[in-house]
Protein backbone atom coordinates (compact mmCIF):
# COMPACT_ATOMS: atom_id res chain seq x y z
CA UNK A 1 0.00 0.00 0.00
CA UNK A 2 1.40 3.36 -1.03
CA UNK A 3 1.29 6.03 1.59
CA UNK A 4 1.57 9.73 1.03
CA UNK A 5 4.53 11.67 2.31
CA UNK A 6 2.37 14.75 2.76
CA UNK A 7 -1.08 15.65 4.05
CA UNK A 8 -3.34 13.08 5.64
CA UNK A 9 -5.90 12.29 2.99
CA UNK A 10 -5.96 9.05 0.99
CA UNK A 11 -7.42 11.02 -1.95
CA UNK A 12 -4.08 12.10 -3.36
CA UNK A 13 -0.83 10.10 -3.29
CA UNK A 14 2.24 12.27 -2.83
CA UNK A 15 5.51 10.38 -3.16
CA UNK A 16 9.03 10.82 -4.42
CA UNK A 17 10.32 8.30 -6.95
CA UNK A 18 13.99 9.02 -7.55
CA UNK A 19 14.19 12.50 -9.07
CA UNK A 20 10.41 12.78 -9.63
CA UNK A 21 7.92 14.30 -7.23
CA UNK A 22 4.75 12.32 -7.99
CA UNK A 23 1.26 13.75 -7.46
CA UNK A 24 -1.30 11.02 -8.14
CA UNK A 25 -4.97 11.94 -7.77
CA UNK A 26 -6.72 9.07 -6.03
CA UNK A 27 -10.40 9.73 -5.56
CA UNK A 28 -11.86 7.41 -8.22
CA UNK A 29 -15.45 7.51 -6.96
CA UNK A 30 -15.60 11.22 -7.91
CA UNK A 31 -13.33 11.04 -11.00
CA UNK A 32 -10.63 12.56 -8.79
CA UNK A 33 -12.51 15.84 -8.24
CA UNK A 34 -10.53 18.07 -5.88
CA UNK A 35 -11.34 18.65 -2.22
CA UNK A 36 -9.78 21.28 -0.01
CA UNK A 37 -7.74 18.59 1.77
CA UNK A 38 -6.33 17.40 -1.56
CA UNK A 39 -5.38 20.94 -2.62
CA UNK A 40 -3.67 21.62 0.69
CA UNK A 41 -1.76 18.32 0.65
CA UNK A 42 -0.57 18.96 -2.94
CA UNK A 43 0.59 22.46 -2.01
CA UNK A 44 2.42 21.13 1.04
CA UNK A 45 4.29 18.63 -1.17
CA UNK A 46 5.09 21.21 -3.84
CA UNK A 47 6.40 23.67 -1.26
CA UNK A 48 8.65 20.99 0.23
CA UNK A 49 9.90 19.82 -3.19
CA UNK A 50 10.66 23.38 -4.22
CA UNK A 51 13.76 23.28 -1.99
CA UNK A 52 14.39 19.50 -2.04
CA UNK A 53 17.52 19.06 -4.14
CA UNK A 54 16.62 15.45 -4.91
CA UNK A 55 13.44 16.45 -6.75
CA UNK A 56 14.22 17.52 -10.31
CA UNK A 57 10.71 17.50 -11.79
CA UNK A 58 7.09 17.05 -10.71
CA UNK A 59 4.55 14.82 -12.47
CA UNK A 60 0.79 15.07 -11.90
CA UNK A 61 -1.48 12.23 -13.03
CA UNK A 62 -4.29 10.06 -11.66
CA UNK A 63 -4.03 6.71 -9.91
CA UNK A 64 -6.87 4.17 -10.00
CA UNK A 65 -9.92 4.49 -12.22
CA UNK A 66 -10.85 6.51 -15.27
CA UNK A 67 -10.46 10.24 -15.81
CA UNK A 68 -7.71 12.67 -14.80
CA UNK A 69 -9.72 15.16 -12.73
CA UNK A 70 -13.38 16.09 -13.18
CA UNK A 71 -13.23 19.35 -11.24
CA UNK A 72 -13.90 20.34 -7.65
CA UNK A 73 -16.27 19.29 -4.93
CA UNK A 74 -19.18 21.43 -6.18
CA UNK A 75 -21.82 19.74 -4.05
CA UNK A 76 -19.97 20.94 -0.96
CA UNK A 77 -19.63 24.38 -2.57
CA UNK A 78 -23.36 24.63 -3.26
CA UNK A 79 -24.22 23.52 0.26
CA UNK A 80 -21.88 26.13 1.69
CA UNK A 81 -23.10 28.76 -0.77
CA UNK A 82 -26.67 28.22 0.40
CA UNK A 83 -25.46 28.89 3.97
CA UNK A 84 -22.82 31.55 4.71
CA UNK A 85 -20.25 30.47 2.10
CA UNK A 86 -17.33 30.14 4.55
CA UNK A 87 -16.33 26.62 3.53
CA UNK A 88 -16.67 27.48 -0.16
CA UNK A 89 -14.33 30.46 0.21
CA UNK A 90 -11.81 28.35 2.12
CA UNK A 91 -11.86 25.80 -0.70
CA UNK A 92 -11.35 28.41 -3.44
CA UNK A 93 -8.57 30.04 -1.45
CA UNK A 94 -6.67 26.75 -1.11
CA UNK A 95 -7.33 25.69 -4.71
CA UNK A 96 -6.24 29.00 -6.24
CA UNK A 97 -3.10 29.00 -4.08
CA UNK A 98 -2.25 25.60 -5.56
CA UNK A 99 -2.98 26.85 -9.09
CA UNK A 100 -0.73 29.87 -8.57
CA UNK A 101 2.04 27.81 -6.95
CA UNK A 102 2.13 25.56 -10.03
CA UNK A 103 2.05 28.55 -12.37
CA UNK A 104 5.14 30.05 -10.73
CA UNK A 105 6.96 26.76 -9.97
CA UNK A 106 10.56 26.83 -11.11
CA UNK A 107 11.19 23.10 -11.53
CA UNK A 108 9.79 21.33 -14.60
CA UNK A 109 6.15 20.27 -14.11
CA UNK A 110 4.34 17.67 -16.19
CA UNK A 111 0.56 17.05 -16.25
CA UNK A 112 -0.79 13.87 -17.82
CA UNK A 113 -4.36 14.65 -18.91
CA UNK A 114 -5.32 11.08 -19.71
CA UNK A 115 -9.12 11.23 -19.53
CA UNK A 116 -11.68 13.73 -18.28
CA UNK A 117 -9.95 17.04 -17.52
CA UNK A 118 -12.47 19.64 -16.44
CA UNK A 119 -12.70 22.69 -14.18
CA UNK A 120 -10.38 22.02 -11.25
CA UNK A 121 -8.49 19.48 -13.38
CA UNK A 122 -7.80 22.20 -15.93
CA UNK A 123 -6.60 24.43 -13.09
CA UNK A 124 -3.83 22.00 -12.11
CA UNK A 125 -2.76 21.05 -15.65
CA UNK A 126 -2.61 24.32 -17.62
CA UNK A 127 -0.01 25.93 -15.31
CA UNK A 128 2.34 22.97 -15.94
CA UNK A 129 5.14 23.44 -18.46
CA UNK A 130 4.59 20.08 -20.14
CA UNK A 131 0.92 19.18 -20.70
CA UNK A 132 0.28 15.77 -22.21
CA UNK A 133 -2.96 14.96 -24.03
CA UNK A 134 -3.90 11.41 -25.03
CA UNK A 135 -6.60 9.74 -27.09
CA UNK A 136 -8.67 9.64 -23.87
CA UNK A 137 -8.49 13.36 -23.08
CA UNK A 138 -11.86 15.09 -22.68
CA UNK A 139 -11.14 18.69 -21.85
CA UNK A 140 -13.71 21.32 -20.91
CA UNK A 141 -14.61 24.27 -18.75
CA UNK A 142 -18.30 23.41 -18.23
CA UNK A 143 -19.06 25.82 -15.34
CA UNK A 144 -21.75 27.92 -17.03
CA UNK A 145 -23.92 24.77 -17.00
CA UNK A 146 -24.08 24.84 -13.18
CA UNK A 147 -24.28 28.60 -12.73
CA UNK A 148 -20.56 29.07 -12.02
CA UNK A 149 -17.88 30.53 -14.32
CA UNK A 150 -14.56 29.22 -15.70
CA UNK A 151 -12.34 29.87 -12.70
CA UNK A 152 -8.96 28.35 -11.64
CA UNK A 153 -7.32 30.80 -14.05
CA UNK A 154 -9.90 30.43 -16.84
CA UNK A 155 -10.02 34.18 -17.28
CA UNK A 156 -6.29 34.11 -18.00
CA UNK A 157 -5.93 30.96 -20.13
CA UNK A 158 -9.13 31.15 -22.17
CA UNK A 159 -8.66 34.82 -23.02
CA UNK A 160 -5.25 33.97 -24.47
CA UNK A 161 -6.47 31.34 -26.93
CA UNK A 162 -6.60 32.27 -30.63
CA UNK A 163 -9.67 33.73 -32.34
CA UNK A 164 -12.41 33.68 -29.67
CA UNK A 165 -12.05 29.93 -29.01
CA UNK A 166 -11.76 30.74 -25.31
CA UNK A 167 -15.06 32.62 -25.28
CA UNK A 168 -16.67 29.74 -27.19
CA UNK A 169 -15.36 27.21 -24.66
CA UNK A 170 -16.36 29.34 -21.66
CA UNK A 171 -19.93 29.87 -22.87
CA UNK A 172 -20.82 26.48 -24.34
CA UNK A 173 -18.62 24.26 -22.16
CA UNK A 174 -17.48 22.56 -25.38
CA UNK A 175 -15.57 19.31 -24.85
CA UNK A 176 -12.29 19.05 -26.69
CA UNK A 177 -10.43 15.85 -27.45
CA UNK A 178 -6.67 15.37 -27.14
CA UNK A 179 -5.88 16.38 -30.72
CA UNK A 180 -7.87 19.59 -30.34
CA UNK A 181 -6.06 20.39 -27.09
CA UNK A 182 -2.68 19.94 -28.77
CA UNK A 183 -3.79 21.97 -31.78
CA UNK A 184 -4.84 24.91 -29.59
CA UNK A 185 -1.74 24.78 -27.38
CA UNK A 186 -3.74 23.71 -24.31
CA UNK A 187 -1.58 20.59 -24.44
CA UNK A 188 2.09 20.72 -25.42
CA UNK A 189 2.30 17.06 -26.50
CA UNK A 190 0.03 14.30 -27.84
CA UNK A 191 0.99 10.83 -26.63
CA UNK A 192 -0.86 7.50 -26.72
CA UNK A 193 -1.94 6.11 -23.38
CA UNK A 194 -0.02 2.90 -24.07
CA UNK A 195 3.26 4.89 -24.09
CA UNK A 196 2.73 6.45 -20.66
CA UNK A 197 4.61 3.83 -18.58
CA UNK A 198 7.67 4.08 -20.84
CA UNK A 199 7.35 7.85 -20.82
CA UNK A 200 7.40 7.96 -17.01
CA UNK A 201 10.47 5.75 -16.99
CA UNK A 202 12.22 8.09 -19.41
CA UNK A 203 11.20 11.15 -17.40
CA UNK A 204 12.84 9.59 -14.34
CA UNK A 205 16.08 9.24 -16.34
CA UNK A 206 16.12 12.78 -17.76
CA UNK A 207 13.88 14.85 -15.48
CA UNK A 208 15.50 18.18 -16.40
CA UNK A 209 14.83 17.42 -20.03
CA UNK A 210 11.11 16.82 -19.46
CA UNK A 211 9.88 18.44 -22.67
CA UNK A 212 12.49 16.69 -24.80
CA UNK A 213 11.86 13.31 -23.19
CA UNK A 214 8.10 13.56 -23.70
CA UNK A 215 8.65 14.75 -27.27
CA UNK A 216 10.26 11.43 -28.11
CA UNK A 217 6.95 9.65 -27.40
CA UNK A 218 4.76 11.87 -29.55
CA UNK A 219 2.18 9.97 -31.58
CA UNK A 220 0.50 10.90 -34.82
CA UNK A 221 -2.79 12.49 -33.88
CA UNK A 222 -6.10 12.64 -35.71
CA UNK A 223 -7.17 15.87 -37.41
CA UNK A 224 -8.33 18.38 -34.78
CA UNK A 225 -12.04 18.79 -35.52
CA UNK A 226 -12.18 22.30 -34.12
CA UNK A 227 -9.88 23.57 -36.88
CA UNK A 228 -12.76 23.43 -39.38
CA UNK A 229 -14.98 25.53 -37.10
CA UNK A 230 -12.45 28.16 -36.10
CA UNK A 231 -13.64 30.66 -38.69
CA UNK A 232 -17.24 30.28 -37.50
CA UNK A 233 -16.18 30.58 -33.88
CA UNK A 234 -14.20 33.76 -34.57
CA UNK A 235 -17.12 35.25 -36.50
CA UNK A 236 -20.12 34.22 -34.40
CA UNK A 237 -18.55 34.60 -30.95
CA UNK A 238 -16.83 37.89 -31.81
CA UNK A 239 -18.79 40.08 -29.40
CA UNK A 240 -18.26 40.50 -25.66
CA UNK A 241 -22.06 40.99 -25.38
CA UNK A 242 -24.00 37.76 -24.88
CA UNK A 243 -27.08 39.15 -26.67
CA UNK A 244 -25.00 39.89 -29.79
CA UNK A 245 -23.51 36.39 -29.83
CA UNK A 246 -27.00 34.86 -29.58
CA UNK A 247 -28.24 37.14 -32.37
CA UNK A 248 -25.31 36.14 -34.58
CA UNK A 249 -25.99 32.42 -33.98
CA UNK A 250 -29.72 32.91 -34.64
CA UNK A 251 -28.97 34.63 -37.95
CA UNK A 252 -26.73 31.77 -39.10
CA UNK A 253 -28.60 28.86 -40.60
CA UNK A 254 -25.87 26.23 -40.41
CA UNK A 255 -26.53 23.11 -38.32
CA UNK A 256 -23.39 23.84 -36.36
CA UNK A 257 -24.60 27.31 -35.32
CA UNK A 258 -28.06 26.01 -34.40
CA UNK A 259 -26.58 23.23 -32.24
CA UNK A 260 -24.29 25.67 -30.44
CA UNK A 261 -27.20 28.08 -29.98
CA UNK A 262 -29.29 25.37 -28.30
CA UNK A 263 -26.35 24.51 -26.03
CA UNK A 264 -25.75 28.15 -25.15
CA UNK A 265 -29.43 28.68 -24.30
CA UNK A 266 -29.32 25.84 -21.77
CA UNK A 267 -26.63 27.65 -19.73
CA UNK A 268 -27.12 30.21 -16.98
CA UNK A 269 -27.45 33.65 -18.62
CA UNK A 270 -25.90 35.26 -15.55
CA UNK A 271 -22.93 32.87 -15.68
CA UNK A 272 -22.46 33.49 -19.38
CA UNK A 273 -22.35 37.24 -18.85
CA UNK A 274 -19.97 36.83 -15.91
CA UNK A 275 -17.72 34.64 -18.06
CA UNK A 276 -17.56 37.08 -20.97
CA UNK A 277 -16.67 39.92 -18.64
CA UNK A 278 -14.06 37.80 -16.83
CA UNK A 279 -12.33 36.91 -20.10
CA UNK A 280 -12.40 40.54 -21.27
CA UNK A 281 -10.76 41.58 -17.98
CA UNK A 282 -8.38 38.60 -17.95
CA UNK A 283 -6.94 39.39 -21.39
CA UNK A 284 -5.46 42.62 -20.07
CA UNK A 285 -4.18 41.44 -16.71
CA UNK A 286 -0.44 41.67 -16.14
CA UNK A 287 0.10 38.84 -13.67
CA UNK A 288 -1.53 35.53 -12.86
CA UNK A 289 -1.62 36.67 -9.24
CA UNK A 290 -3.94 39.55 -10.21
CA UNK A 291 -6.10 37.05 -12.09
CA UNK A 292 -6.47 34.75 -9.11
CA UNK A 293 -7.22 37.63 -6.75
CA UNK A 294 -10.01 38.80 -9.06
CA UNK A 295 -11.40 35.29 -9.58
CA UNK A 296 -11.43 34.67 -5.83
CA UNK A 297 -13.50 37.79 -5.21
CA UNK A 298 -15.84 36.79 -8.04
CA UNK A 299 -16.13 33.17 -6.86
CA UNK A 300 -16.84 34.30 -3.30
CA UNK A 301 -19.86 36.22 -4.61
CA UNK A 302 -21.06 33.84 -7.33
CA UNK A 303 -21.10 30.81 -5.03
CA UNK A 304 -23.95 32.44 -3.12
CA UNK A 305 -26.13 33.23 -6.15
CA UNK A 306 -29.38 31.45 -6.93
CA UNK A 307 -28.08 30.14 -10.25
CA UNK A 308 -25.15 28.24 -8.74
CA UNK A 309 -27.22 26.55 -6.04
CA UNK A 310 -29.95 25.77 -8.59
CA UNK A 311 -27.44 24.54 -11.21
CA UNK A 312 -25.85 22.05 -8.81
CA UNK A 313 -29.31 20.86 -7.75
CA UNK A 314 -30.52 20.31 -11.30
CA UNK A 315 -27.37 18.72 -12.79
CA UNK A 316 -25.70 16.95 -9.90
CA UNK A 317 -28.19 16.31 -7.06
CA UNK A 318 -31.69 15.80 -8.53
CA UNK A 319 -30.26 15.20 -12.01
CA UNK A 320 -33.44 16.47 -13.69
CA UNK A 321 -31.26 18.59 -16.01
CA UNK A 322 -33.90 21.32 -15.87
CA UNK A 323 -32.37 24.24 -13.98
CA UNK A 324 -34.57 27.31 -13.52
CA UNK A 325 -32.18 30.19 -14.13
CA UNK A 326 -32.90 33.59 -12.61
CA UNK A 327 -32.97 35.77 -14.59
CA UNK A 328 -34.07 33.41 -17.34
CA UNK A 329 -32.97 35.57 -20.27
CA UNK A 330 -29.80 37.57 -20.90
CA UNK A 331 -31.65 40.86 -21.37
CA UNK A 332 -32.85 40.67 -17.77
CA UNK A 333 -29.33 40.45 -16.28
CA UNK A 334 -28.64 43.91 -14.91
CA UNK A 335 -25.24 45.55 -15.26
CA UNK A 336 -25.56 46.49 -11.63
CA UNK A 337 -25.81 42.80 -10.66
CA UNK A 338 -22.59 42.13 -12.56
CA UNK A 339 -20.86 45.12 -10.95
CA UNK A 340 -21.74 43.75 -7.52
CA UNK A 341 -20.35 40.29 -8.36
CA UNK A 342 -17.09 41.73 -9.71
CA UNK A 343 -16.49 43.99 -6.71
CA UNK A 344 -13.06 43.38 -5.13
CA UNK A 345 -13.04 42.07 -1.58
CA UNK A 346 -12.04 44.43 1.23
CA UNK A 347 -8.37 44.21 2.29
CA UNK A 348 -7.92 41.40 4.78
CA UNK A 349 -10.48 39.19 3.03
CA UNK A 350 -8.62 39.17 -0.32
CA UNK A 351 -6.95 36.12 -1.81
CA UNK A 352 -3.19 35.95 -1.25
CA UNK A 353 -0.59 33.61 -2.82
CA UNK A 354 1.95 31.59 -0.85
CA UNK A 355 4.96 33.73 0.09
CA UNK A 356 7.84 33.26 -2.38
CA UNK A 357 10.69 31.09 -1.12
Amino acid sequence: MLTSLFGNTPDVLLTREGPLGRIRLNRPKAIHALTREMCEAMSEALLAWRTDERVKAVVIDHAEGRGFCAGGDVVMLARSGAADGTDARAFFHAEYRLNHLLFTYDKPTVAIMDGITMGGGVGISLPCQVRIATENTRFAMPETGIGLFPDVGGGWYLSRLPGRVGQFMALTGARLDGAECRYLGLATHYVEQASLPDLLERLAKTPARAAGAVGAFTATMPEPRIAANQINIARLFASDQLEEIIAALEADESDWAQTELATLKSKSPLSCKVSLRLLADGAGRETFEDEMRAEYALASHVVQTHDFIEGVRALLLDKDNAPKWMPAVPEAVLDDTLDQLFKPLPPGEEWTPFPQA
Partner: protein
Amino acid sequence: MPEYNTILFEQRDAVTLVTLNRPQALNALNSEVLRELIAAFAAYDADDSQRCLVLTGSEKAFAAGADIKEMSSQNFADMYASDFFAGWEKVTATRKPWIAAVGGYALGGGCEVAMMADFIIASDTAKFGQPEIKLGVTPGMGGSQRIALALGKAKAMEMCLTGRMMGAEEAERAGLVAKVVPAASLLDEALKTAAEIAAMPPLAALACKEMVNAAFEMPLQQGIRFERRLFHGLFGTEDQKEGMAAFVEKRPGQFKGR
Protein backbone atom coordinates in the same frame (compact mmCIF):
# COMPACT_ATOMS: atom_id res chain seq x y z
CA MET B 1 0.46 28.69 -20.23
CA PRO B 2 1.27 29.71 -23.70
CA GLU B 3 1.92 32.75 -25.62
CA TYR B 4 3.73 30.16 -27.77
CA ASN B 5 2.40 27.14 -29.64
CA THR B 6 5.48 25.64 -31.28
CA ILE B 7 8.11 26.30 -28.62
CA LEU B 8 8.29 26.09 -24.83
CA PHE B 9 9.76 29.10 -23.06
CA GLU B 10 11.09 28.89 -19.50
CA GLN B 11 13.38 30.89 -17.30
CA ARG B 12 15.58 29.03 -14.83
CA ASP B 13 17.30 31.65 -12.70
CA ALA B 14 19.40 33.69 -15.16
CA VAL B 15 19.14 31.11 -17.96
CA THR B 16 16.36 31.11 -20.55
CA LEU B 17 15.46 27.69 -21.91
CA VAL B 18 13.70 27.50 -25.28
CA THR B 19 12.55 24.06 -26.45
CA LEU B 20 11.48 23.52 -30.04
CA ASN B 21 8.18 21.67 -29.72
CA ARG B 22 6.56 20.41 -32.88
CA PRO B 23 7.26 16.77 -32.04
CA GLN B 24 4.72 15.44 -34.53
CA ALA B 25 6.87 16.97 -37.32
CA LEU B 26 10.30 16.24 -35.74
CA ASN B 27 10.46 19.96 -34.96
CA ALA B 28 10.46 20.99 -38.61
CA LEU B 29 10.90 24.76 -38.82
CA ASN B 30 7.97 26.61 -40.36
CA SER B 31 7.09 30.28 -40.39
CA GLU B 32 5.22 29.99 -37.09
CA VAL B 33 8.29 28.55 -35.36
CA LEU B 34 10.40 31.33 -36.82
CA ARG B 35 7.92 33.97 -35.63
CA GLU B 36 7.90 32.51 -32.14
CA LEU B 37 11.69 32.14 -31.99
CA ILE B 38 12.15 35.75 -33.04
CA ALA B 39 9.80 36.81 -30.23
CA ALA B 40 11.49 34.51 -27.69
CA PHE B 41 15.02 35.65 -28.53
CA ALA B 42 13.97 39.30 -28.48
CA ALA B 43 12.36 38.75 -25.06
CA TYR B 44 15.59 37.14 -23.84
CA ASP B 45 17.80 39.91 -25.20
CA ALA B 46 15.62 42.58 -23.59
CA ASP B 47 15.38 40.94 -20.15
CA ASP B 48 18.15 42.16 -17.85
CA SER B 49 17.65 39.23 -15.48
CA GLN B 50 18.60 36.75 -18.23
CA ARG B 51 22.28 36.18 -19.05
CA CYS B 52 22.42 33.09 -21.24
CA LEU B 53 19.97 31.07 -23.36
CA VAL B 54 19.80 27.40 -24.30
CA LEU B 55 17.91 26.33 -27.41
CA THR B 56 17.06 22.63 -27.55
CA GLY B 57 14.69 20.15 -29.19
CA SER B 58 13.54 16.68 -28.25
CA GLU B 59 15.65 13.59 -27.64
CA LYS B 60 14.80 12.37 -31.12
CA ALA B 61 15.29 15.58 -33.05
CA PHE B 62 16.74 19.02 -32.46
CA ALA B 63 15.07 20.04 -35.70
CA ALA B 64 14.71 17.90 -38.80
CA GLY B 65 14.80 20.78 -41.25
CA ALA B 66 12.62 23.46 -42.72
CA ASP B 67 8.99 22.61 -43.35
CA ILE B 68 9.11 21.21 -46.88
CA LYS B 69 5.33 21.10 -47.17
CA GLU B 70 5.14 24.83 -46.53
CA MET B 71 7.80 25.59 -49.15
CA SER B 72 7.15 23.11 -51.93
CA SER B 73 4.65 25.20 -53.90
CA GLN B 74 6.48 28.56 -53.63
CA ASN B 75 7.77 30.26 -56.79
CA PHE B 76 10.69 32.61 -57.31
CA ALA B 77 8.65 35.80 -57.15
CA ASP B 78 7.07 34.84 -53.80
CA MET B 79 10.37 33.78 -52.27
CA TYR B 80 12.24 36.86 -53.48
CA ALA B 81 9.51 39.37 -52.68
CA SER B 82 9.09 38.07 -49.13
CA ASP B 83 12.88 37.65 -48.75
CA PHE B 84 12.13 34.15 -47.44
CA PHE B 85 14.33 33.09 -44.48
CA ALA B 86 15.59 36.68 -43.95
CA GLY B 87 13.74 36.65 -40.61
CA TRP B 88 16.45 34.37 -39.22
CA GLU B 89 18.77 37.37 -39.18
CA LYS B 90 16.67 38.64 -36.29
CA VAL B 91 17.63 35.51 -34.36
CA THR B 92 21.33 35.86 -35.20
CA ALA B 93 21.15 39.54 -34.18
CA THR B 94 20.78 38.40 -30.55
CA ARG B 95 23.54 40.20 -28.65
CA LYS B 96 23.67 38.01 -25.55
CA PRO B 97 25.22 34.54 -25.57
CA TRP B 98 23.23 31.45 -26.47
CA ILE B 99 23.94 27.74 -26.82
CA ALA B 100 22.33 25.09 -29.01
CA ALA B 101 21.87 21.78 -27.13
CA VAL B 102 21.48 19.24 -29.92
CA GLY B 103 20.10 15.73 -29.40
CA GLY B 104 19.07 13.55 -32.34
CA TYR B 105 18.67 14.98 -35.84
CA ALA B 106 19.87 18.47 -36.77
CA LEU B 107 19.34 18.38 -40.50
CA GLY B 108 19.02 21.10 -43.12
CA GLY B 109 17.44 24.11 -41.45
CA GLY B 110 17.92 22.37 -38.10
CA CYS B 111 21.66 22.17 -38.64
CA GLU B 112 21.69 25.77 -39.83
CA VAL B 113 19.88 27.00 -36.70
CA ALA B 114 22.27 25.04 -34.48
CA MET B 115 25.20 26.71 -36.26
CA MET B 116 23.66 30.14 -35.60
CA ALA B 117 24.31 29.55 -31.88
CA ASP B 118 27.49 30.83 -30.27
CA PHE B 119 28.38 27.18 -29.85
CA ILE B 120 26.83 23.72 -29.94
CA ILE B 121 26.77 21.11 -27.20
CA ALA B 122 25.72 17.77 -28.73
CA SER B 123 24.50 14.50 -27.30
CA ASP B 124 26.25 11.33 -28.48
CA THR B 125 23.11 10.59 -30.52
CA ALA B 126 23.27 13.86 -32.49
CA LYS B 127 23.42 13.76 -36.29
CA PHE B 128 24.20 16.79 -38.42
CA GLY B 129 23.67 17.28 -42.14
CA GLN B 130 22.81 19.62 -45.01
CA PRO B 131 20.82 17.33 -47.32
CA GLU B 132 19.03 20.11 -49.26
CA ILE B 133 20.79 19.18 -52.50
CA LYS B 134 18.67 16.03 -52.65
CA LEU B 135 15.57 18.23 -53.00
CA GLY B 136 17.03 20.32 -55.80
CA VAL B 137 17.97 23.25 -53.58
CA THR B 138 20.79 24.27 -51.22
CA PRO B 139 21.09 25.53 -47.66
CA GLY B 140 19.23 28.85 -47.45
CA MET B 141 19.56 30.00 -43.86
CA GLY B 142 23.31 30.60 -43.90
CA GLY B 143 24.28 26.94 -43.73
CA SER B 144 26.80 26.86 -46.57
CA GLN B 145 28.70 29.82 -45.11
CA ARG B 146 28.65 28.74 -41.48
CA ILE B 147 29.49 25.09 -42.19
CA ALA B 148 32.46 26.21 -44.32
CA LEU B 149 33.68 28.46 -41.51
CA ALA B 150 33.26 25.65 -38.99
CA LEU B 151 34.62 22.70 -40.98
CA GLY B 152 36.84 24.18 -43.69
CA LYS B 153 36.34 23.70 -47.43
CA ALA B 154 36.91 19.97 -47.86
CA LYS B 155 34.42 18.70 -45.30
CA ALA B 156 31.93 21.50 -46.01
CA MET B 157 31.86 20.67 -49.71
CA GLU B 158 31.58 16.97 -49.00
CA MET B 159 28.67 17.50 -46.61
CA CYS B 160 26.75 19.87 -48.87
CA LEU B 161 27.37 17.98 -52.13
CA THR B 162 26.59 14.49 -50.82
CA GLY B 163 24.01 15.50 -48.21
CA ARG B 164 25.42 12.89 -45.85
CA MET B 165 24.93 12.89 -42.10
CA MET B 166 27.77 13.48 -39.63
CA GLY B 167 27.67 11.84 -36.18
CA ALA B 168 28.46 13.61 -32.93
CA GLU B 169 31.94 12.21 -32.52
CA GLU B 170 33.08 13.29 -35.98
CA ALA B 171 31.38 16.67 -35.46
CA GLU B 172 33.43 17.27 -32.35
CA ARG B 173 36.67 16.22 -34.07
CA ALA B 174 35.89 18.49 -37.00
CA GLY B 175 35.16 21.50 -34.79
CA LEU B 176 31.43 21.78 -35.47
CA VAL B 177 30.50 21.21 -31.83
CA ALA B 178 32.22 22.31 -28.63
CA LYS B 179 31.49 19.22 -26.58
CA VAL B 180 29.75 15.82 -26.77
CA VAL B 181 27.90 14.47 -23.73
CA PRO B 182 25.73 11.39 -23.04
CA ALA B 183 22.15 11.85 -24.29
CA ALA B 184 20.65 11.56 -20.80
CA SER B 185 22.69 14.46 -19.44
CA LEU B 186 22.53 16.76 -22.49
CA LEU B 187 20.25 19.36 -20.99
CA ASP B 188 21.87 19.25 -17.56
CA GLU B 189 25.28 19.84 -19.15
CA ALA B 190 24.00 22.62 -21.40
CA LEU B 191 22.21 24.34 -18.51
CA LYS B 192 25.31 23.99 -16.34
CA THR B 193 27.49 25.59 -19.00
CA ALA B 194 24.87 28.29 -19.54
CA ALA B 195 24.77 29.00 -15.80
CA GLU B 196 28.56 29.39 -15.81
CA ILE B 197 28.33 31.91 -18.63
CA ALA B 198 25.43 33.64 -16.88
CA ALA B 199 27.65 34.21 -13.85
CA MET B 200 30.29 36.06 -15.93
CA PRO B 201 30.43 39.86 -16.10
CA PRO B 202 27.70 40.52 -18.70
CA LEU B 203 29.44 43.33 -20.59
CA ALA B 204 32.58 41.24 -21.00
CA ALA B 205 30.39 38.40 -22.31
CA LEU B 206 28.81 40.71 -24.89
CA ALA B 207 32.25 41.95 -25.93
CA CYS B 208 33.65 38.40 -26.22
CA LYS B 209 30.80 37.37 -28.46
CA GLU B 210 31.17 40.44 -30.63
CA MET B 211 34.92 40.08 -31.10
CA VAL B 212 34.94 36.33 -31.78
CA ASN B 213 32.23 36.89 -34.38
CA ALA B 214 34.40 39.66 -35.88
CA ALA B 215 37.04 37.03 -36.63
CA PHE B 216 34.70 35.65 -39.30
CA GLU B 217 33.99 39.00 -40.88
CA MET B 218 37.21 41.06 -40.76
CA PRO B 219 40.78 40.73 -41.98
CA LEU B 220 43.11 39.75 -39.14
CA GLN B 221 44.71 43.17 -38.65
CA GLN B 222 41.34 44.89 -38.34
CA GLY B 223 39.98 42.15 -36.14
CA ILE B 224 42.88 42.47 -33.75
CA ARG B 225 42.44 46.24 -33.59
CA PHE B 226 38.68 45.76 -33.01
CA GLU B 227 39.47 43.40 -30.15
CA ARG B 228 41.96 45.80 -28.63
CA ARG B 229 39.54 48.72 -28.72
CA LEU B 230 36.76 46.67 -27.04
CA PHE B 231 39.34 45.49 -24.50
CA HIS B 232 40.30 49.11 -23.79
CA GLY B 233 36.65 50.02 -23.52
CA LEU B 234 35.99 47.47 -20.78
CA PHE B 235 38.34 49.46 -18.54
CA GLY B 236 35.53 52.00 -18.37
CA THR B 237 33.23 49.49 -16.59
CA GLU B 238 32.63 48.89 -12.89
CA ASP B 239 32.82 45.16 -13.53
CA GLN B 240 36.45 45.43 -14.65
CA LYS B 241 37.36 47.27 -11.42
CA GLU B 242 35.46 44.70 -9.35
CA GLY B 243 36.80 41.70 -11.30
CA MET B 244 40.43 42.69 -10.95
CA ALA B 245 40.04 43.78 -7.30
CA ALA B 246 38.37 40.44 -6.49
CA PHE B 247 41.20 38.58 -8.24
CA VAL B 248 43.84 40.41 -6.20
CA GLU B 249 41.86 39.90 -2.97
CA LYS B 250 41.27 36.22 -3.81
CA ARG B 251 37.47 36.42 -3.53
CA PRO B 252 34.64 35.84 -6.05
CA GLY B 253 33.63 38.98 -7.97
CA GLN B 254 30.18 40.57 -7.71
CA PHE B 255 29.23 41.72 -11.20
CA LYS B 256 26.52 44.23 -12.05
CA GLY B 257 26.71 44.66 -15.79
CA ARG B 258 27.88 48.27 -15.43
